[in-house]
């Protein structure tokens, strides 16, 4: 049996020369949008699954909305929100859930499977960067799910309940930026989980733990502003807070003035950079570990 190592496979083959770098950049500018478009189309194919997902998000939205009504009836102003804001929190977070792949359904299961079967070697030989490739595909998927699974539940919620959605287009623009940053943070965490399969082989356990942590610490279950005392302050600086809590606060204008919104976006950007950077480090450690079985 032939055996070769994939030690030190160059990602982005043409490096070293200025002309090579330029060529790689030009190719990347065309390649990654194409990968993203592929991700979008791939998920757009499954119409029934999308409809079923919309139904689920709407059902959960109603269940949570009624419990929030009971809770905010009992304690008006809890967590700094009035009842309409609390209900906005429920419905918008249900709309973001699929796009952020917060309870699974993103790329990391597929990536872990490719690592387990060894198909990842093919990905490493491609003239594209592994992290950028998966990021582009995941953003394409998220783009579809934001439209396909986000709009209808939010409309259903807005019809059934009094929501506190802003009329100011600038606020929606800030929200959109915040959502993109939230997607980057979510990808950053999930990329680390995907790479973990290089060491664990089977990702089922770590994925499940990740879902639990995400559900709890993103604010999906209960806004993080409701969490008590020092524990509340702690959970609000964790990266999961950047996935649901921060975009919602940006949308509802909880951060007073432009400075507040900028600080919120900066918080998300820092986590996105830290996590994506950690992903690169772990990726280079992982690819040094890969041994490709030939034959």
């Amino acid at each position, binding site marked *: 049996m032939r055996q070769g190592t994939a030690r030190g496979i160059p990602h982005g083959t043409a490096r070293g020369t200025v002309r090579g770098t330029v060529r790689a950049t030009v190719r990347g500018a065309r390649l990654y949008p194409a990968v993203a478009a592929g991700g979008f189309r791939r998920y757009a194919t499954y119409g029934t699954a999308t409809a079923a997902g919309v139904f689920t998000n709407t*059902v959960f939205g109603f269940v949570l909305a009624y419990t929030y*009504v009971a809770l905010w009836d009992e*304690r008006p102003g809890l967590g700094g929100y009035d009842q309409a804001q609390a209900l906005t929190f429920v419905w918008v977070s249900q709309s973001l859930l699929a796009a952020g792949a917060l309870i699974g359904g993103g790329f990391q299961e597929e990536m872990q499977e490719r690592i387990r079967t060894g198909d990842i070697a093919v990905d490493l030989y491609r003239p594209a960067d592994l992290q950028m490739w998966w990021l582009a595909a995941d953003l394409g998927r998220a783009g579809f799910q934001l439209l396909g699974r986000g709009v209808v539940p939010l409309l259903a919620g807005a019809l059934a309940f009094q929501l506190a959605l802003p009329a100011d287009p600038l606020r929606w623009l800030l929200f959109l930026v915040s959502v993109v940053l939230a997607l980057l943070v979510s990808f950053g965490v999930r990329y680390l989980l995907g790479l973990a399969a290089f060491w664990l082989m089977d990702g089922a*356990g770590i994925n*499940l*733990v990740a879902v639990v942590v995400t559900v709890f610490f993103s604010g999906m279950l209960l806004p993080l502003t*409701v*969490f008590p005392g020092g524990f509340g302050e702690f959970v609000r600086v964790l990266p999961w807070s950047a996935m649901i809590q921060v975009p919602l606060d940006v949308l509802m204008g909880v951060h007073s003035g432009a400075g507040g919104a900028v600080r919120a976006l900066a918080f998300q950007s820092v986590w996105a950079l830290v996590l994506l950077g950690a992903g690169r480090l772990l990726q280079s450690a992982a690819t040094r570990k890969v041994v490709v079985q030939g034959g």
Partner: protein
Amino acid sequence: MAEAEAVESAVAPARSGGPKGAPVLPVLPVPPLVPVRIRAVEGLRGYGLIVAMWVRSTMAYRTSFFLSTFGNAAITLLDFVAIWIMFSHVDVLGGFTLPEIALLYGSSSASLGLADLLLGNTDRIGVRIRDGSLDTMLVRPVPVLAQVAADRFALRRVGRIGQGLAVLVWAVSQLDVEWTAGKVLLVPVMVLAGAAIFGAVMVAGAAFQFVAGDAAEVQNSFTYGGNTMLQYPPTVFAKDLLRGVTFIVPLAFVNWLPALYVLGRPYPLGLPGWVAFVSPLVAVAVFVPASLAWRAGLRSYRSTGS
């Protein structure tokens, strides 16, 4: 154990395309004309054999198994922590105290966990229809429902059951209830009948996938979504929603009606007191249409041919 291996060798290569060579037909003795009762026994036996195989396979990745069992327990635990955080701000929610809600929470979680352990993987039927691997199940001498239910049997789901039961026990110890024989009996009956009702919803959802394709999420919204709803008192929800989950998809019988009887509280729809005890009958009543739907779905199945 010899038979378990025979089934395994037949099942494993078909499933994974593994290198074990041509599939060997399992040596399960099945008479040509099978009476219903024996068929049920055969189904259970086949189910048991496949489950035993998956448990062995799970144990091959032991770290992952313990992590995922822990994860399963933690998912429900954090649900409960969220409720607990709510109660750090309020004394009652919808007129119910924390131990009362814990009773609802624990029973619903344990019921769903049990149903999920035994029948939860029926939601993978959509994937099997899409990739054509359902065909291999049709030629095996074990009822298809038993095979589908045992498929990728996930022992880690005992985590959720254990966690639900722990909260249930805590609730029972905290509640200020005058326990009668009827109430004591009602608690375990509630958990088991609730699991059967959730199970029927899962079978019906699997049948629906024969028609709708890959729509596992629809059944999730009734099982997981229903479970989230049943963790909170019915007084929180709109009357129309309550009518829906009482008379159309009878999830209210999983725990609301029996638990409200135990707590001595009225159901918002004003039903007579004896309905608290009919959950097992409701479970049977919903399993009949669910299994008929399953049969109809299976008969209408056309293979993708690939």
